[in-house]
């Protein structure tokens, strides 16, 4: 088996994100000796928190330059860690930070890289990986003979590692950053322009709103204000995450009145996200994308819309309620 490294990063508070612990669990599950490398603020303390994972050696980079998630410095630090560990197989979480920088690191160490990995299976010297192609439409199983090989794992696939803390005695790896590596400065984190935080990756329920909420209703009038109140009330009571069809967010771009708290960030499907939640409830949604692509990783699915023959809900949802979503959601909110 190739010399394996679990490459992780810390968050701004020095802790490891859930996705990092999931990657660690994947490395442990391979059943082979492995090392751990961590970059970012508080990396050394973070190795202590996972000392019991069974890694042979811990490596860290916690230079102030990697306190910010910046491409050039993160890439240089990742290269230094991979080279220090002599890694041939690198497992890393597919966070926004590593998705940004690790392809560049792969290039610099002459490695191959694959992303969005949803399954791993080791058999002798061969490691098979699975990922989706064509936006969650085709599932591929593949391997590579070339090493080094970097694999970024999708979040939500592996259960996070849990175990004992201890003294990891991590080896600090020195990185020489070029002057040009710090042309970019991270100035902060912003929430999207919205009335409330509506994207909750860890929510048990995904609520998908379609363009039907902004169309004329049976009285011949628009009720966008009522729709906003109903949806926000529901989100507040259930702490669900809000998804949107493409057509709904496109309406906003075209200048029509729509839900003010909805942005492209909420969009699920072809040019949106494919979130993982145990349950999903779609309302006023009629397109393929929310149901086929946006719902790929939703376990239990229900839909409320007025079309009993909706080709995309039938066969994709477990239950299709043929009803007026305004009426149903009013009653749902009352019961909640």
């Amino acid at each position, binding site marked *: 088996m190739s010399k394996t490294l679990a490459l992780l990063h810390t968050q701004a508070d020095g802790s490891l*994100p859930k996705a990092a612990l999931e990657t660690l669990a994947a490395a442990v599950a391979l059943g082979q000796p492995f090392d751990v490398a961590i970059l970012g603020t508080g990396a050394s303390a973070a190795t202590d928190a996972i000392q019991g994972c069974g890694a042979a050696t811990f490596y860290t980079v916690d230079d102030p330059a990697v306190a910010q*998630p910046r*491409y*050039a410095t993160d890439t240089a630090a990742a290269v230094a860690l991979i080279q220090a560990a002599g890694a041939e197989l690198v497992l890393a979480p597919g*966070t*926004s*930070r590593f998705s*940004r*920088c690790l*392809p*560049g690191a*792969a*290039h610099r160490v002459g490695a*191959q*890289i694959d992303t*969005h990995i949803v399954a791993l299976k080791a058999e002798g010297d061969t490691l098979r990986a699975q990922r989706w*192609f*064509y936006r969650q*439409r*085709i*599932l*591929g*199983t*593949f*391997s*590579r*003979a070339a090493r080094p090989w970097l694999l970024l794992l999708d979040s939500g696939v592996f259960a996070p590692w849990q175990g004992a803390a201890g003294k990891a005695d991590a080896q600090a790896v020195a990185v020489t950053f*070029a002057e*040009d590596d710090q042309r*970019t400065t*991270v100035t*902060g*984190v*912003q929430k*999207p322009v919205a009335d409330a935080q509506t994207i909750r990756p860890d929510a048990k*329920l995904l609520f998908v709103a379609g363009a039907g909420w902004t169309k004329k209703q049976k009285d011949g009038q628009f009720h966008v204000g009522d729709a906003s109140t109903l949806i926000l009330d529901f989100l507040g009571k*259930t702490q669900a995450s809000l998804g949107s069809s493409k057509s709904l967010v496109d309406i906003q*771009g075209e200048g029509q009145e729509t839900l003010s708290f909805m942005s*492209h960030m*909420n*969009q699920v499907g*072809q040019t949106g996200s494919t979130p993982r939640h145990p349950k999903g409830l779609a309302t006023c949604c009629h397109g*393929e*994308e929310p149901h086929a692509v946006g719902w790929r990783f939703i376990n239990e*699915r229900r839909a*409320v819309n007025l079309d*009993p023959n909706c080709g995309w*809900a039938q*066969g*994709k*949802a*477990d*239950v*299709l309620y*043929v*009803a007026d979503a305004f009426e*149903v959601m009013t*009653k749902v909110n*009352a019961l*909640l």
Partner: protein
Amino acid sequence: MNGFQIVVCGSLVPDPLQTLEPVTTPQGPGLKNETMLPSVLDPWSAHALYEAANLAKQAAGSKVYLVSLGPKAKLQQLMMTVAQKVPFELVALDGSASGFTDAHGVAAALADAIAAIPGLDKSRLLVFGGCASASRDASVTMQLVCERLGIRDFFAGVDELKVAEDDSFTVLERIEGGEYLASACKGAPAVLAWATGNLPEPPNNPQVGMANMRGVMPSLMKAKPTPSGVGGIAYETTEIPPQKRQTRIVKDASADEIAKEIVEWINN
């Protein structure tokens, strides 16, 4: 603000409404009737192209290039619509646009094509692309292009780019939890992989189309054959897992009954 050379990387993908069926070909995995499938410009690359045109309008003296790797005949069809959207000069590469090709080979071809653009001034260069393709969906090609061009600043999942008078710029990148990472960069060169941005799709403009097509046809004529295969990937299977569910259709229930059932389901 001085003019930029804005190079957009983007190719074609099957129309999202098409049903895709994987098949095995001598070159590796492919799609059934792939050459016959209607194509669109890769959606995130399309957003990048519209943002590039918008920036070019603001910064006088800018020029937009579209570097596109795909089968020449399909690129020609695609240009009939895309060329009507915004002004650009096409740099065409004749090769596979399959989602099963290796991003490393594709990135090498794109970087070589960008580097070969006559009069390229790296100090004014902004390379745009989509944050992922709707075919390979790997989110690695633009970083590999960035490295091959020797550029140190890369941004992923970009929704906003604001360029200041001194040519420095600020960027908003999508991160977890619906938040944005805000960054400030000293200026070009940089590579930006766009998410959706904030611009609607421009309406078709026949005049723009006619102007673009004067350059498109010669570019297609001299499109360099570009081998882009599966590289070192050994595919074992490509399949569409069964997704059909037995949908229970509830037609004649009252809103009260439906609401009660939904609430019980949510709470269980």
